[in-house]
Structure formats: structure tokens, C-alpha cells
């Protein structure tokens, strides 16, 4: 296991036999990957696994090109053969899945929520890798988190294009609060409208909560890709033909401005 900082390395102590870290500072792709090369040069790894996040994909690409590894991203199942891996990955914005065989050595980006989190009680050795040369100037502004982070919450309430004004997002936040969950939006609300710093979807956050509630969310593949591993999916949308109704557990076809206040009222009454 490699992590970019001592504190992070200590957090996973017990889960891995050998843990490597380097105090690398904010994400400089080439400095990070050169630390990884240094770790990998000390033993020959048949499989390198990265998270399917923005940074994980960047590092997977850099790392695997160096020694021409077969690479697959968006992987959610892995089966190992003698000299290869058979992996199942999502393609076409998560609408389809592809089965492919990768020769070893291979690099994988694993989708969050594909496997249960590991539990182990190993004796860990924590090793330091020397600091690497910076390849660029970096200034990092951490995102502001209002309330619970969506990718760590058990309930996620998401507002989509059906939400008419920023003011109306309060309704989404209130519902999330009553369910002790997090709120988020789809990409157009974050990027086009600027109502949130983060969003759920292929270019944003991937979530895998017990309960996902999409409100005024149509269910475009690039959004659903970030929510597909939710245990229960609920959709509230006035358009009966919205694709989200094809892949929800429970759906209400109706005006969100009637349905959501009704939900809030009922949940408050229970308390």
C-alpha cells in the first residue's frame, strides 16, 4: 500500500503488511508517480490497484504507461487466472458492461463500493519513500464541506434539473438533514448554475449509500454512473419517461414541489 503522507499511512496500519508513504504535499502527478515507481521497483507487482477517482485515474495512467501494463478502469469484478485477469468494467456511461482479459502485469482502477472494505489485523511495517522533485507549481484549495460528505454518507439526497432555483435547494438540504444524510446535485446544477462545489457523477463524486434519493433527476448515464452502487434508489420526477424510473427501486411520478414538502412534513411528524 502506498499513501502520500505519514498520517494517512498510519490510518491503514493493520490492513496491509507493507505500507509505504512519502510526504508529497498537494497533488503533483509526476512527483506522486515517481514515488510509486520507487516503491514498485523494490518488488515486482503483478497487479496495481488504484481508486476510480480523478487522481486515481491519473496515477494509474502514468504508472502503467511506464512499464506497458494492461490497464482497465471502472472495474467492479475481478477474476484471476494463471497469467491474466478477467475483469468486468462499466462502459458507455455505465449503461453497459464489458468483460475483458488483461495480461499480467496489469493496472486496475476499482470502482468504489465494488467490494466490501477490508478488515484485517496484520502487523504492518511502515516505510518512508524519499520526497520527490516537484514537476510544477501547485496551489491547493480544499473543497468546503457543508454537513456530511456525500461519499461517506449512508443516505444521499440529490437535486437535479427539476430544481428551479438555488433557494429551492434548501428543501433538498432539509430532507437530507431529516434522514441524517448528505445532499448533493447533478453536474448542471454545480457547473452551469454554480450552486454547489461538487456533484455526483462520472466527473464528480461516486457514492454508494444505503439510500439514494434523486429529486428532479432525469437519470442521465453520466450521473447514474456515480450513484449506481447505491443499495436502494428512489426517484421523484414529474416526467414519467425519465430514464431514472428504469433503474430505481421506488419512484414517485409527480411534482417535486408537492412531493418533497409532503415527505418533509411526514418525517417531521414522526420525530
Amino acid at each position, binding site marked *: 500500500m502506498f499513501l502520500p503522507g505519514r498520517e494517512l499511512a498510519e490510518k491503514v496500519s493493520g490492513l496491509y503488511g507493507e505500507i509505504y508513504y512519502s510526504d508529497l504535499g498537494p497533488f503533483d502527478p509526476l512527483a506522486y508517480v515517481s514515488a510509486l515507481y520507487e516503491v514498485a521497483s523494490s518488488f515486482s507487482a503483478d497487479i496495481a490497484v488504484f481508486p476510480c477517482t480523478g487522481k486515481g485515474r491519473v496515477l494509474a495512467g502514468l504508472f502503467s504507461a511506464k512499464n506497458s501494463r494492461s490497464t482497465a478502469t471502472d472495474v467492479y469484478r475481478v477474476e484471476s487466472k494463471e497469467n491474466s485477469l478477467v475483469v468486468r468494467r462499466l462502459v458507455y456511461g455505465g449503461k453497459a458492461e464489458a468483460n475483458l482479459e488483461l495480461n499480467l502485469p496489469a493496472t486496475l482502477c476499482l470502482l468504489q463500493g465494488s467490494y466490501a472494505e477490508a478488515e484485517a489485523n496484520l502487523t504492518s511495517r511502515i516505510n518512508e519513500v524519499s520526497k520527490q522533485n516537484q514537476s510544477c507549481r501547485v496551489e491547493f484549495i480544499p473543497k468546503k464541506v457543508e454537513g456530511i460528505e456525500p461519499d461517506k454518507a449512508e443516505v444521499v439526497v440529490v437535486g437535479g434539473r427539476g430544481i428551479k432555483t438555488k433557494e429551492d435547494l434548501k428543501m433538498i438540504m432539509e430532507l437530507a438533514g431529516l434522514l441524517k444524510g448528505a445532499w448533493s446535485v447533478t453536474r448542471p446544477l454545480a457547473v452551469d448554475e454554480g450552486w454547489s462545489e461538487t456533484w455526483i457523477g462520472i*466527473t464528480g463524486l461516486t457514492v454508494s449509500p444505503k*439510500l439514494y434519493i434523486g429529486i428532479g433527476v432525469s437519470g442521465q448515464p453520466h450521473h447514474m*454512473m456515480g450513484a*449506481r452502487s447505491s443499495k436502494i434508489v428512489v426517484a421523484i420526477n414529474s416526467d414519467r419517461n425519465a430514464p431514472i*424510473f428504469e433503474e430505481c427501486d*421506488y419512484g414517485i411520478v409527480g411534482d417535486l414541489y408537492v412531493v418533497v414538502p409532503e*415527505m418533509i412534513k411526514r418525517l417531521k411528524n414522526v420525530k
Partner: protein
Amino acid sequence: MRIIVALKPTYDVSQLKFDSEGVPLLDTCPVTLGEADKCALEEALKVKESLGATVVAVTVGQSEAHIKGIKDALAMGADEGYIIKIKNAWNISSITVANAIARFAVVTGPYDIVFTGSGAGDTHSSIIGPMVSALLGYRLVANADKVEVKEQKAKAKCTMEDGTYNYEVQFPAVITVTSEANEPRIPTLKAILRSKNMQVKEIGPEQLDLSVEEYKDIKVIKHMVERKRVIMEASDQKSAEESVIKLLTFLKDEGVI
């Protein structure tokens, strides 16, 4: 300044349909340049206008869609357009694609910048740009939402899962651009007509000393998630109340609230 823009025509996944067996109906699905790739080209054209640059558009594949993609890039304003002639381009490994672009850059270079989309419209792996950076030994800026190019360096704002990164890199560099970076221009009729006379140049794998790794037996089927699909109506206040009560009961029974 010399700039490569690496482009990939992709299926428009929002219009993708499947047959009853779950096989994707790719023949009837429209194919266009990916949104982020077009934004990458737009950034290159902005540099051409502000600082002066030769913009070379390249794609890996030889199908009609690949030729059309390069013609579109020429119509938008690229100076030269190439296809790297590889059959079954949809089935080759990402490292083959990255190697093709990197070798192309070496053979036709040198270049200051390689622009490409942060992810393709269909697979969205987001690894080609980083791979090309590692193969060429160029610096890397990934997922740029905003790019500002100066003579010898670029500044870029990138949004990642934990926040915003402002980078400043020296050239040569690979810069991957998101679909939020700009509004790609729509070519004028005049530009389209002019581009009709421009040649889409071809370059073969042997000219690039490239070995092609093709995936055998890729099976692609509809990704089915078992969902209950219990749909309730809320056409007025009364039915909304009833549906909400039912929904909350379902969610309690599921143990999720």
C-alpha cells in the same frame, strides 16, 4: 508554438439502445467527437489566435467516424489533420492508443503542448493523457476546467475529488481538458467548405514502429442492476400524500431510514 490535439470519436451514449438480449445497438447510435475533446481543440485554437501556433489534430483509427472527426477538427480551425491507420480501433488497448499518439508526437514533432479531452465520451477512462505524458516524458496537467497558456508555460485550474488545484507547468506538457473548460466554436459554413479541400493525412502503425495490442472476445452487454421499480403516482395533493406514506413505509421495511 506547435500543438497536438488528440481526439476520439465516440458513441453518443445518451442515445444508445439495446436489443432484447441486451446487446448494444451500436450501428444505430450516432458517433461524434467527445465533448471534452472538442473543448481540448478549442483551447488549442485559442492559443493559435492569441500567441500563434500550428495545431495538429490526430485520432487513432481509420473508420468513417474517425475521418469525419478529423474533418470536423479541420473545419473548426486545426491546421493539419491525421488519422493513425489502425483497424478495429474500438477494441485496442489504451496503452496502444497512448503509444500511437506518443510515437506520432515523436515522429512529427517536436511539440510544446499535447491537448486532449479529460475523458472520452464512451469509456471515460481518463488515462490516455497521463499515459502519453509518461511515454513522452512531458509534464502533466489533468482535468483542467480553465487553461491559460503563455509563451513557455501554462496555468490551469483543475477540480479533483478533494478540491481545486491551481497548477503552473513549463512546456512541453500534456494538458487534459474537461467539458467545462469552454464552449467549443461551431464552424462557419465558409470554414466547413474550406476544410473540404484540406487533406486528412494518413500514417500507418509501421511508420510509427507501433505494435498493436487488440483485446480478443470483448463481450459488451447491457449493465443490469436489479431494481424493484415500484412506481407510484402523485398527480394531485391527495395521491402525493398517499404515495409519500407508501414510500416511507417501503424505506422503513428496507431498513434504510
